[in-house]
């Protein structure tokens, strides 16, 4: 039901749409978004949408325009052209009531260093109080949900109860990041933007953060758009993955769907007579049966690997970047011989 769209394969203008979804049900609706700085096109026709409660991961190489896209959606940056609707409103004209319904997790540095954790969250939360209760048109939150989030509950949710009375500048890097997330969600946003939220996290902090995102999406029904360089993270968190390269969305689908795109590229490894072999097969089943027919039980250490998300990502990005220069995805039928290891 999700539409896979390869720009340049299906439609060059990348007119993304969810066919059976009326536009007003989309929390995010971006059509043909363009951004140009001077004579450089940073975004050249980005289109995608998001439904309520969906978690979207925006992937792409550095300089692909991820941050620019997210800042346009946050209303922090003006676009050159295109249609953008965020919670039913054009972010370029979003007022304070609109602002109250979105959450932004910023990259922190050293702001509010003298404030205490609880003090800061209570203060920033107080701005949301007038926007409590049932939202206006386009919002789909159950009526009566109070804004802001109860401070102590929120502090417990992000795991900072022990640090509640501590000055912000005394927090560790991971704690500080959790505070940033808490600030981003203190107004119980219907839509949350996370720009590289786990950069610099240790594995445990990362795991805790992932649990928190799942909880927000499931229990709070928040729509979440996050950017990341961690493909594993995208695969774990996102219902849908968007790959942004060279200023456009080059793929849009679940991690599974994206991997299947590249299923032609399964990798077969084996060894025979002490030599190791790697082969990229279009049809791995046929290849392996052929292999056995030919060599029988002398085939050892057999391993068949579907393309991982990382392989898919690399292939798609490489293709997008070399587009126009004529080289497509390599078929790769040649058997590459690895270093010969005896025994």
């Amino acid at each position, binding site marked *: 039901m999700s539409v896979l769209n390869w720009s340049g394969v299906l439609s060059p203008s990348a007119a993304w749409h969810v066919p059976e979804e009326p536009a007003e049900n989309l929390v995010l609706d971006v059509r043909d978004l363009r951004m140009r700085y001077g004579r450089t096109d940073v975004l050249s026709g980005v289109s995608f949408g998001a439904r309520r409660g969906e978690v979207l991961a925006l992937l792409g190489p550095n300089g692909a325009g991820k941050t620019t896209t997210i800042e346009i959606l946050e209303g*922090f*940056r003006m676009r050159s052209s295109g249609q953008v609707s965020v919670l039913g409103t054009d972010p370029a004209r979003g007022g304070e009531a609109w602002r109250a319904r979105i959450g932004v997790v*910023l990259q922190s540095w*050293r702001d509010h*260093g003298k404030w205490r954790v609880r003090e800061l969250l209570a*203060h920033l939360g*107080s701005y949301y*109080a*007038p926007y409590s209760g049932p939202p206006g048109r386009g919002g789909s939150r159950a009526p009566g949900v109070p804004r802001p989030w109860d401070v102590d509950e929120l502090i417990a949710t992000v795991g900072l109860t022990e640090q509640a009375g501590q000055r912000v500048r005394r927090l560790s890097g991971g704690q500080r990041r959790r505070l940033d997330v808490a600030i981003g969600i203190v107004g119980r946003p219907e839509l949350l933007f996370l720009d590289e939220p786990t950069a610099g996290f240790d594995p445990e902090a990362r795991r805790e953060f992932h649990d928190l995102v799942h909880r927000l999406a499931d229990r709070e029904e928040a729509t979440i758009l996050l950017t990341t360089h961690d493909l594993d993270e995208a695969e774990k968190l996102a219902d849908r993955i968007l790959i942004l390269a060279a200023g456009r969305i080059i793929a849009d689908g679940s991690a599974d769907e994206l991997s299947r795109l590249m299923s032609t590229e399964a990798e077969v490894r084996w060894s025979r007579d002490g030599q190791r072999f790697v082969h990229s097969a279009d049809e791995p089943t046929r290849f392996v049966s052929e292999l056995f027919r030919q060599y029988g039980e002398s085939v050892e250490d057999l391993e068949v690997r579907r393309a991982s998300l990382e392989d898919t990502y690399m292939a798609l990005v490489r293709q997008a970047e070399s587009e126009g220069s004529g080289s497509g995805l390599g078929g790769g039928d040649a058997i590459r011989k690895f270093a010969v290891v005896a025994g």
Partner: protein
Amino acid sequence: MNASWVAARAGVRRGWIELKHTFTTPSDLVTLLIFTGILLGVMLWTHNTTVPGTHFSLGTAMLASMLGMTVGFNGLATLGSILTVEREDGTLLRAKATPNGMTGYLIGKVVTVSGTILISVAATLITGALLFSGLAVGSASTWLTLIPVVLLGLLATLPIGAVLGSLFPSARSAGLLTLAMGGLAAISGIFYPITHLPHWLQWVGQMFPLYWLGLGTRSALLPANLASVEVGHSWRHLATFGVLSAWAVAGLLAAPILLRWVARRESGSSVAARREKVLRQAAG
């Protein structure tokens, strides 16, 4: 309740919280005390010198001037440099990401800086009145002049301070602002009667609010005969009111426009870019 009203109240609370932070953070407190301490030291040192042409202690006269300077200097330089610092560290962006956050932020800043100024003025005045004789702290007319001068002074300098803070691109360059203020203080008749300066410098000095603030607080606290060393041998209350009001109006007109312009340009990547730059400079 109306959202702007909520934000305004949040702003006042914010100002109060940050004022408490200033007075509970040792480094901030030390900065404040050093400033006042140096001034009092200078006054003690010049205590036995007299204002030229009079028998009045130069130290005491300087103390009266100093109150006006405290208002002007901090109104112009402190708010300005706080704005550049907090633009750089992301505080401003945080405010922008909050509904009505900029309103709250600005009100908070005005409360914090005004509060700091008023406390400094009170501290200097109380210490000065205990250490020096000759200040007319007992009469009602003193307070009827002093309070309006200080309040009008805040109104004349805080918005201009915000304008300056918006114009300086980084916290480092805003250091120049403090330096420039020091230069301005030297030609504003704070430490020595302005009538002893070359004519053209007197004119330059009188263009800025600092001179008029000093004149205003002197007129409140010093005996009437000391007006003889001022320009035109008068305290010039009307002119003081006029010039300070003009600066207030100019500042109040320009500040919202510039602050909106600054706020509009804030985004995650602009804060990140400035952070990179600062870290690079610190490393290199």
